[in-house]
């Protein structure tokens, strides 16, 4: 089985086959995005654990302290709730903070601030408070980091009205989603899959912004819709290639944003292919995959030729041992098998 890495690189190449560009890593794309934002807008600053002197726990912010200084690149104590809340307060006070949380599991220490303040202040104040805050965090498994550093909780966050949930899967989105998020008057959470940071992709010239409310069709196909996001996109693209060799033409949809969910793009694909496989690194129960499935059943039931299939993470905390971790996560063979199964249903 090929790695997700190579498929992501291929994906970005395919995405930009018509354009000139340069090859950079996902990490570099995020760093450029922050550098750009810090340069463009004095109100932007970055804070989080080890974002300064250490250079970021995933080296995303390496070099920014030296260039922008300690007032704008602020190392924080290990106080997720306080520095996320401080980001909310600073946003209310006219700044455009980028708050970095090391991993999604640690974000739970700040869940009070995210849920009870960031997401609700506007509503609770009758529209007076706006919280233009961006919170970046690493999500996902695949690096043998076990059960407190590997989960995919972006689907949980997508449950909450009042925040937007972005899951950049390509270097282009890693490079450009941040600025769009910072321009948004409301809180935006960006989930960066940890397995993507080292992935290279072609960053096309000529793109200088992206939207953050539309899904993208990454591969056009007519037989089955594979709907996914984030770290699973590469696997879905690989699965689509394998299916193509069997004569099955899969369409791959990258959700890009889990909230608000671009239902229209999903429905347009499913009403064309009549079959859907959802690939979600979150757990199946109560997941974003469940939400997508429900919406398709609600709005396109009679267009379906087969039951919706889901490929999700097994319902266990992520284990350490490599073979067990791999078994827990959605993988290419599982996606291919799910697609074959829905294809087996008669039209």
């Amino acid at each position, binding site marked *: 089985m090929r790695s997700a890495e190579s498929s992501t690189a291929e994906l970005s190449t395919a995405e930009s086959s018509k354009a000139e560009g340069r090859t950079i890593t996902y990490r570099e794309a995020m760093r450029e995005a922050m550098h750009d934002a810090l340069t463009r807008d004095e109100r932007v600053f970055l804070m989080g654990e080890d974002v300064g002197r250490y250079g970021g726990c995933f080296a995303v912010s390496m070099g920014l302290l030296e260039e922008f200084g300690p007032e704008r690149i602020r190392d924080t104590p290990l*106080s997720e709730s306080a*520095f996320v809340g*401080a980001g909310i*307060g600073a946003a209310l*006070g006219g700044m455009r903070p980028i708050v970095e949380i090391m991993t999604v599991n640690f974000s739970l220490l700040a869940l009070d*601030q995210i849920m009870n*303040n960031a997401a609700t202040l506007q509503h609770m104040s009758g529209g007076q*408070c*706006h919280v233009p805050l961006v919170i970046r965090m690493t999500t996902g498994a695949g690096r043998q980091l076990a059960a407190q550093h590997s989960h995919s909780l972006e689907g949980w966050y997508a449950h909450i009205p009042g925040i*937007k949930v972005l899951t950049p899967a390509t270097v282009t989105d890693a490079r450009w989603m941040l600025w769009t998020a910072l321009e948004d008057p409301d809180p935006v959470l960006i989930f960066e899959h940890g397995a993507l940071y080292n992935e290279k992709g072609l960053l096309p010239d000529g793109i200088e912004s992206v939207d953050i409310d539309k899904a993208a069709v990454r591969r056009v196909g007519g037989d089955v819709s594979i709907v996914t996001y984030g770290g699973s996109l590469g696997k879905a693209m690989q699965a689509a290639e394998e299916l193509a060799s069997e004569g099955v033409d899969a369409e791959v949809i990258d959700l890009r944003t889990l909230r608000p969910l671009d239902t229209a793009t999903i429905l347009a694909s499913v009403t064309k292919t009549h079959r859907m496989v959802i690939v979600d690194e979150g757990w199946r129960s109560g997941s974003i995959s469940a939400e997508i499935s429900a919406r398709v059943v609600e709005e396109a039931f009679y267009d379906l030729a087969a039951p919706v299939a889901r490929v999700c993470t097994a319902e266990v905390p992520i284990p350490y041992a490599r073979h067990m971790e791999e078994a827990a996560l959605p993988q290419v063979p599982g996606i291919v098998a799910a697609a074959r199964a829905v294809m087996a249903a008669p039209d």
Partner: protein
Amino acid sequence: MTANLPDRAHGQRLLREMLRIRRFEDACVELYSAAKIRGFLHLYIGEEAVAVGVSQALQADDAVVSTYRDHGHALTRGISAAAIMAEMFGKVEGCSRGRGGSMHLFDVERHFYGGNAIVAAGLPVAVGLALADHLQHRPLVTTCFFGEGAVAEGEFHESMNLAALWRLPVLFCCENNLYAMGTALARSEAETNLAVKAASYEMPAWSVDGMDVLAVESAARGAVEAIRAGGGPHFLELRTYRFRAHSMYDPERYRDKSEVETWKLRDPITTFTETLQGAGLLEANGLEAMEHEIAAELSAAIEAAEAGTLEPVDQLTRFVHSDPTQPSEFVS
């Protein structure tokens, strides 16, 4: 009294503000009993000297973050009784358009960033407001009110540390009314000297008689002056007492009636009335005149709230995300 007597006008203003909060909440109790207002209702009765004393030290553009016991803070920061009452009635004219209720009074124009009903969750936000002022070189002070129950929360400690570490202009006002709902301080804290806890974060901290409006004002002025001069965050423990139950659903099994009665002897309004009258700063009928004015203001506020507008249900999903098609205070 621990501080010098104020001049006549200022003394009467302090008394009037305290009395106004008291009568506003007396009215709330009646309206609650009449089922005109619902939800949780946390009364500040007995604690008025804290809000009134602290607010004397603040400028109009200083930010305030409050708790679910926020009527007194909101009134002293200039939100009208009518806007607060309309909020209680769930009307569009309310200071949060009826979306917040008693626990979530907001007025961003007056830099009042809300009653926060998660204990200690306002502290990080206050730190952030102060950080924004610091980064934008504005000589402002953010005041954060919270109860002594908040001291047990992690967010209290994280925020105290962060504010002190970054020397941010925050005035932490701990309203110690001795009970976190029904749990006495000594039943929840190993160290009950709250100023000592705060001082461990390398921040000036002291305890103040929160039943004495002049003592509160004096302490707050000193702290705010130091903060505005770049002295970093300060902490005040304001020792006070709520005369009423925690909320309207509280049978008060956790404290003796005699304790309440003893504290009532120190009622900040009656003691300060006596102080002013004893010093010849308030006429014998001075209080009565204030009562009349306040009663007129409140009955007008209640009448306006009764007559206020219920938001159409088709507006339900507004204010979840900023609506680019609606005019907004948001300036990008």
